[in-house]
């Protein structure tokens, strides 16, 4: 199987010498779902944001969907990666001045130069897949958090990405809205979408993840299958973390 993400000794240092990423080497293969866990400040968000160039890094090698990215952050490569990699944020980050439909069709029309009719048809099918087709003409502020996040997923899917990145997609949601978003992500996994998900949802990780990557202080502590990680974690640090979150 071909690898969608490959990193070798990725290092990012903050101003005070603190390492947000400390020699991260990892790989995600096609159709794999990787769940990234770790305490806050462990660098998991930084890591996932380097995958589409929202964060730069200082040294090491990074290859996303076959495109190499170096510490010089080549603008053309970064944009090429972003066209092929979707991202869903913790705070949804929908565009408040655009309708739901316009939010989803903006990139297909402006970046991929699709015609409007075609882009809107695709957007409507994505919305129905997300179970919110009736909201197409509304504005983001008129939707609940769970619905907004599903719109954000549809927006990320509109460019037909080869890889989807989720940065704590359920952390900003009311507890009763978490399920609907996780269900949407789960159904994408079943369709074979390659995904990296930063999350604290243990139940979701057990069920959907092919691998769990555990990070602390910018280092990869362990990468295991969920079966191993949640019942018999190899590292003391992982077991301590699982204890703290009540598993």
């Amino acid at each position, binding site marked *: 199987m071909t690898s969608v993400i490959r990193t070798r000794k990725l290092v990012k240092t903050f101003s005070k010498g603190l390492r947000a990423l400390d020699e991260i080497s990892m790989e995600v293969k096609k159709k794999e779902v990787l769940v990234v866990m770790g305490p806050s400040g462990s660098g998991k968000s930084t890591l996932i944001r380097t995958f589409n160039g929202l964060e730069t890094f200082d040294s090491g090698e990074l290859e996303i969907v076959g495109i190499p990215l170096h510490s010089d952050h080549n603008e053309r490569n970064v944009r090429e990666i972003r066209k092929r990699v979707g991202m869903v944020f913790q705070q*949804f980050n*929908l565009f408040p*001045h655009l309708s739901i439909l316009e939010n989803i069709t903006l990139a297909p029309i402006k970046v991929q130069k699709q015609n409007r009719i075609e882009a809107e048809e695709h957007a409507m099918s994505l919305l129905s897949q997300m179970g919110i087709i009736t909201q197409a003409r509304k504005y983001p502020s008129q939707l609940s958090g769970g619905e907004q996040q599903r719109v954000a997923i549809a927006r990320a899917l509109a460019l037909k990405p080869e890889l989807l990145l989720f940065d704590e997609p359920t952390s900003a949601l009311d507890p009763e809205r978490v399920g609907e978003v996780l269900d949407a992500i789960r159904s994408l996994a079943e369709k074979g979408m390659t995904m990296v998900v930063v999350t604290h949802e243990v139940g979701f990780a057990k069920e959907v993840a092919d691998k769990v990557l555990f990070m602390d202080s910018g280092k990869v502590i362990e990468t295991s299958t969920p079966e191993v990680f949640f019942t018999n974690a190899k590292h003391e640090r992982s077991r301590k973390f699982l204890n703290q979150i009540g598993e």
Partner: protein
Amino acid sequence: MNKKHNLFPYIRRIAFSNSLDTCITLFILLAVFLLSTITIKWLLFGADWAVVIQNYPLYAFGLFPADQRWRPALWLLLLISLTIITLVGPRWRWLRKLLPITWIGVIPLGIVLLSGGLGLLPVASRYWGGVTLTIFLTTCSSLLAFPLGIILAIGRQSDLPLIKFFSSIYIEALRAVPLIAILFFGQLLIPLFFPIGVEINRVIRAVLAFTLFVSAYVAEDIRGGFQSIPKSQEEAAKALGLSKLQITQFVILPQALIIALPALTNQAIGLLQNTSLMAILGLVELLGISRSILANPLFIGRYMEVYVWLAGIYWLICTVMALLASHLEQKVTIEKLTIKN
């Protein structure tokens, strides 16, 4: 508060709760009564409104030749219709796409209709005047200052140091100079930069001076809008693969303009009032033509009437502008920018 049942106790509580309150209330009522009777008496019986009534065309069109007055009237009418169409917001996409072009066309159309040419009788700019000229100055300067202000605001945010530097210098310099100085500059110095023989119409020079001045303020208003948009909006747009220009054009700028809208309409109203400064520089816009009328021996000493009338017209135009602006704000904002989680 239930008005019907509680009105009297309410009035007593706010106005007559103790003897001092009662004294103040009675004094204010007396003062209001005296002032309004004097004012109404003067308006109805004391004032001689001939100076207004006999000069309606002058207030409206200045010294524009009587048989050509349909030209400024037509331009004003088109402007009003265009404003209404824009505010109603047509449903058809083709018409919405046409609107910006039409607004740009307002300026050359106004110039042609006023100055003549293309088969119309030429009319020199010294004959342009009255409300027409006031509106012409305001409209043209606003329409030119708006895009210039946007460009300056974007320039000030630019990553390119040179562009950022010049935009900042321009904005700071123009904000540091009083408007009247820039208007003098426009009237007296701009001609020096052009070769002898090339003469630019004085009204156009005024429009340019106003544009230079207002654009700096527009830029600052829009910059305020830029700064209140969370960084996460730009990140979301980047993550979708949009280019820098596309991010500004489709994500950042539209939101910044919605946020800056109240400040921008404020600028437009301020600009309308500031056009009266041109009376000092010899243009016969609304204030200027009134001063000319007062210089007519027939109407000597009728200052009160003319200035009350003027205040009324300015008040009316500004109020209409403010109402249109608030209508526009309601239309564009519709709680779009308040994201709930």
